[in-house]
């Protein structure tokens, strides 16, 4: 009696495990007949599948909302309290934490977008679009002309965040001492020029990993310089 019951539970568990392993693919549109078949036989898995499908339908109609600044501050505080973010890390980490990098939603956005771009640059050869027939020399970028022409959707978020950071910087820099302002402007001009030149190189030679590395490094550095400038308090 018990043996038969155990066998049934074991068979259900095996089928449930198979369902669990394949349900994500099924929900992403792949053909997984086992999932539907098991959902009809197993009440628990049937309800789970119905719930997941319901969530997917309802979430499609929801607008994307940017979380307020306090959310980032709370996340940071919680991570710090849990010891995930350590204040006393390396000097480099402390340098970042002193700039309250993670306290700034714009900076978090920039870093998140950089991660997206990094993945895009390292995985996709076509991230900067198809190879053009002939490339004209790009004009030298200035701080006012952000070197982000239309590219793939992978770095749209980065472009938006960079533009926001730059826009905030332009407002903020008015209060800087002229010498500080000039130094930041020169730095950003150099970085914009390098971003444009690197993009040009990657477009011409999509397989050139060094050019990709430089492009990513230039974006990263620009985000860091803008963040540092926004955190600059004149002291």
């Amino acid at each position, binding site marked *: 009696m018990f043996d038969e019951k155990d066998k049934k539970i074991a068979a259900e568990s095996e089928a449930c495990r198979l369902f669990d392993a394949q349900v994500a693919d099924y929900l992403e549109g792949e053909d997984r007949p086992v999932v539907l078949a098991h959902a009809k036989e197993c009440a628990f898995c049937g309800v789970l599948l119905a719930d997941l499908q319901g969530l997917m339908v309802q979430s499609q109609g929801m607008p994307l909302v940017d979380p307020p600044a306090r959310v980032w501050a709370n996340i940071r505080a919680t991570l710090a309290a849990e010891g995930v973010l350590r204040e006393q890390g390396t000097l*480099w980490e402390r340098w970042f934490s002193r700039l309250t990098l993670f306290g700034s939603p714009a900076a978090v956005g920039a870093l998140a977008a950089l991660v997206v771009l990094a993945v895009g640059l390292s995985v996709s050869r076509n991230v900067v679009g198809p190879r053009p027939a002939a490339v004209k020399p790009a004009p030298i970028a200035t701080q006012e002309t952000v070197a982000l022409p239309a590219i793939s959707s992978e770095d749209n978020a980065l472009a938006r965040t960079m533009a926001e950071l730059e826009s905030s910087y332009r407002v903020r820099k008015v209060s800087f001492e002229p010498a500080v302002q000039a130094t930041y402007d020169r730095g950003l001009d150099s970085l914009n020029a*390098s971003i444009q030149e690197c993009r040009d*190189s990657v477009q011409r030679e999509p397989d050139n990993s060094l050019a990709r590395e430089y492009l990513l490094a*230039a974006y990263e550095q620009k985000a860091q310089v803008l963040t540092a400038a926004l955190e600059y308090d004149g002291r």
Partner: protein
Amino acid sequence: MKRFRLSRVWLLIVPLAFLGATPGPSRVEKTVDTTADPLISLSNLKGHVTVKGWEKSQVHLVSVSASPRIEVDVEQFPPSGRAAKMHFATHILDPQLGDKSTDYSLDVPLGSSLQIRNPEGSVQIQTLQGEASLDSVGGTISVSDVAGHLAIRSIGGDIEMVRPSGRVEADSVNGSVRIVSASSSRLRVSTTSGKIFYEGDFLPGGVYELKDYNGDMEILALASASFEVNASTVRGKVIADPDISFKPKRHPAFRPPGSSSLFGTHNTGSANLDLTSFSGTIRIRRLP
């Protein structure tokens, strides 16, 4: 009689007004007993900051501000007894002030660790065993004989490191970086438009990463230096002087078309030297 009194009042007011209009520099001098390895942080705006390590377990501060309307705050922790942490901060009491500079001269225990921000001024550190985190926007940063981890950052200022022996991380955008006689086993330096100059030896097993964008890079190595070099550029050049010989690698790394690169071993190749530039010239020379 009344007229006489008024004139006496004016005699007092006029010099005081002159004193207010042209205030002289203000000076602070202080000595504080500390532990042997205190954490010292300093936040200034403009002026020279000089820090020297000494044998005493004391911090000796001399600061000279351009105006009495600049205040120098000194905080210590714990508030009594030997300080384990000290913080120096410059406060500008009058934002309209023309000259906002304060010069600091600090003698600190050899084991101290430093965190210094001096956005518009220079920083000079001499002889320290602790770590140092230094940043400036436009000022020059110069460090000599620091044994701890160095983290240096500037936007436009030059960086110079003489005889560093701890881990080194130095980044600039427009400034040049110069490293002389390093005995560090981990060194990472980058600049966008500045130059990089490295002179000296490489420790066995050490990793040295030097990266610039369009500035030139020059490596002056000892004849006895043992290192494996991976030098590559996207649009620049790699030049090794004829008097420094490299054994080519058995399996050279992939070279992107049109790029210039050099992969080889000097002597036994015990250190790793990774040099990259986008459009600058990388030159490797032997020290005479």
